[in-house]
């Protein structure tokens, strides 16, 4: 039997639900050198801001049990350079719709990025990151209150006709309230979760491992938290949810979808296994067969 892996996000049909998460796949170039990335459902490209950013000082990476902390700090060439250089290059190696991940330090910046990326034909979805823990005075600050999350959502919705997904932070007391505020403000979907704020200390040197002291914790260790939050949010809103956080296998994709995700992003796993997304996509039909799943859409949110 042919298994149906396709899913639909706000009218955007994906051949399968697997999307590399922003910041773990660049703009596709490095990965396209080792496999044909057209097998992916889509790509959420590297978080883009209005202005070019170098990001945080190094060390930016800390090893953790079943995960890592990163403090990259939204290093990117800026939205104009992304449109001028990265997207034309991506178009040559990836022919499917893409998810444009954008971030900002003010509502005006979010708006400007969305306005510019709205004109890009290959961009199917705008994924608005209001949850980066690695930048001060912005990023996550917008994602930690329902009011500011709604304000960003409303502002970007006014300047684009493309579906807007808001990427939420898990570092909040009530993720459901924030997701609902985004939905009410017009969001077309929710991506969750971004990284958990974490910290490691080098006990021999008595110094934080990360130069910026704290960073975003991701990897297999946060998967149960992500499943829980996807479950909570997906059952509280009517808009689609992209599940993200610690997904490392085809079984994890199924679990995330049963929790309520329509599509699934794979993040940290790409850093330790560059073939992670490819292997997950190839494994999915076998796991579906084993579990008696004909169509992936049949399992979305089956957990009551």
């Amino acid at each position, binding site marked *: 039997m042919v298994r149906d892996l396709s899913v639909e996000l706000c009218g955007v049909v994906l051949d399968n639900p697997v999307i590399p998460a922003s910041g773990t796949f660049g703009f596709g170039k490095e990965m396209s050198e*080792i496999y044909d990335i057209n097998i992916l459902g889509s790509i959420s490209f590297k978080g883009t801001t209005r202005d070019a950013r170098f990001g945080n000082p190094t060390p*930016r990476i800390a090893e953790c049990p079943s995960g890592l902390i990163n403090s990259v700090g939204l290093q990117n060439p800026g939205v104009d350079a992304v449109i001028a250089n990265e997207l034309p290059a991506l178009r040559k190696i990836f022919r499917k719709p893409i998810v444009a991940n954008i971030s900002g330090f003010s509502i005006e910046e979010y708006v400007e990025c969305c306005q510019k990326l709205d004109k890009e034909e290959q961009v199917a979805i705008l994924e608005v990151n209001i949850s980066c823990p690695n930048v001060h005075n912005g990023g996550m600050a917008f994602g930690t209150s329902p009011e500011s999350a709604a304000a960003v959502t409303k502002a970007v919705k006014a300047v684009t006709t493309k579906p807007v997904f808001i990427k939420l932070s898990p570092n909040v007391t009530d993720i459901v309230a924030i997701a609902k505020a985004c939905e009410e403000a017009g969001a077309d979907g929710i991506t969750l979760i971004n990284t958990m704020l974490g910290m490691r200390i080098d006990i021999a040197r008595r110094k934080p491992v990360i130069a910026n002291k704290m960073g975003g914790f991701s990897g297999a260790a946060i998967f149960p938290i992500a499943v829980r939050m996807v479950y909570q949010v997906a059952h509280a809103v009517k808009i689609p949810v992209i599940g993200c956080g610690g997904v490392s296998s085809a079984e994890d994709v199924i679990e995330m979808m049963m929790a309520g995700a329509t599509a699934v992003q794979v993040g940290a796993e790409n850093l*330790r296994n*560059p073939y992670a997304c490819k292997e997950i996509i190839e494994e999915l039909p076998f796991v579906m067969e084993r579990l008696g799943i004909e169509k992936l859409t049949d399992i979305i949110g089956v957990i009551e």
Partner: protein
Amino acid sequence: MQRVVLTVTKNEALTPLIYEMHLAGDVSGVTRAGQFVEIALDGLYLRRPISVCNYEEGELTLVYKVVGKGTDLMSQMAEGTQLDVLTGLGNGFNIDHECKKPLLVGGGVGVPPLYRLTRDLIARGKEVTVVLGFNTEAEIFYAEKFEELGANVIIATADGSVGVKGFVTNAIAESGVETDYFYSCGPLPMLKALCQNLEIDGEVSLEERMGCGFGICMGCSIQTTKGAKRVCKEGPVFKKEEVIW
């Protein structure tokens, strides 16, 4: 980049903390001296980047220092252990740079990548001088191997137990060696001193804590005179004039 399974064929201590590991398998992904590999290790989330000391058809030599959990695990590996390895990472040294008398300077665990480089430069008819810096006699490794390749080898030790007492820069000054280009790998203060003291052009191999090792996570980015660069992808080898100290 290639992902391959390699088998440990030898894993021996050269000094109390420096080990030499030989790995057998398809290492065709390694194409230049100065590149590195990323090894997946049981129980650790991220792969560990290790510089390539030497490569032959079907064989890779890594010389590494035990500095943490990953390298400690490696040091305990028995012959026959199979490892999941990404090969051919990083740019490597520019072995075709026009020069006649290259000076290769290595400090401590920065010495290994200079081995294959020495071999390649000698094969290109260059007159190679290698300056190796260590803390003390007990930490010296590979000096005779460089001599076997035909290089002129100068040793510096911080405590003066062997060779010139002091740093590699002292040894270079004392030896009066003639050179028209340099290649270096070692601790940052050493690389900085070299770049500032040597008037000739050269290139240095830098180290930075990495996430992926193949250019997607931006974990190891540094600022250079030519903009932001990834140590794992555009590096680890940078031209002297690119590095901001």
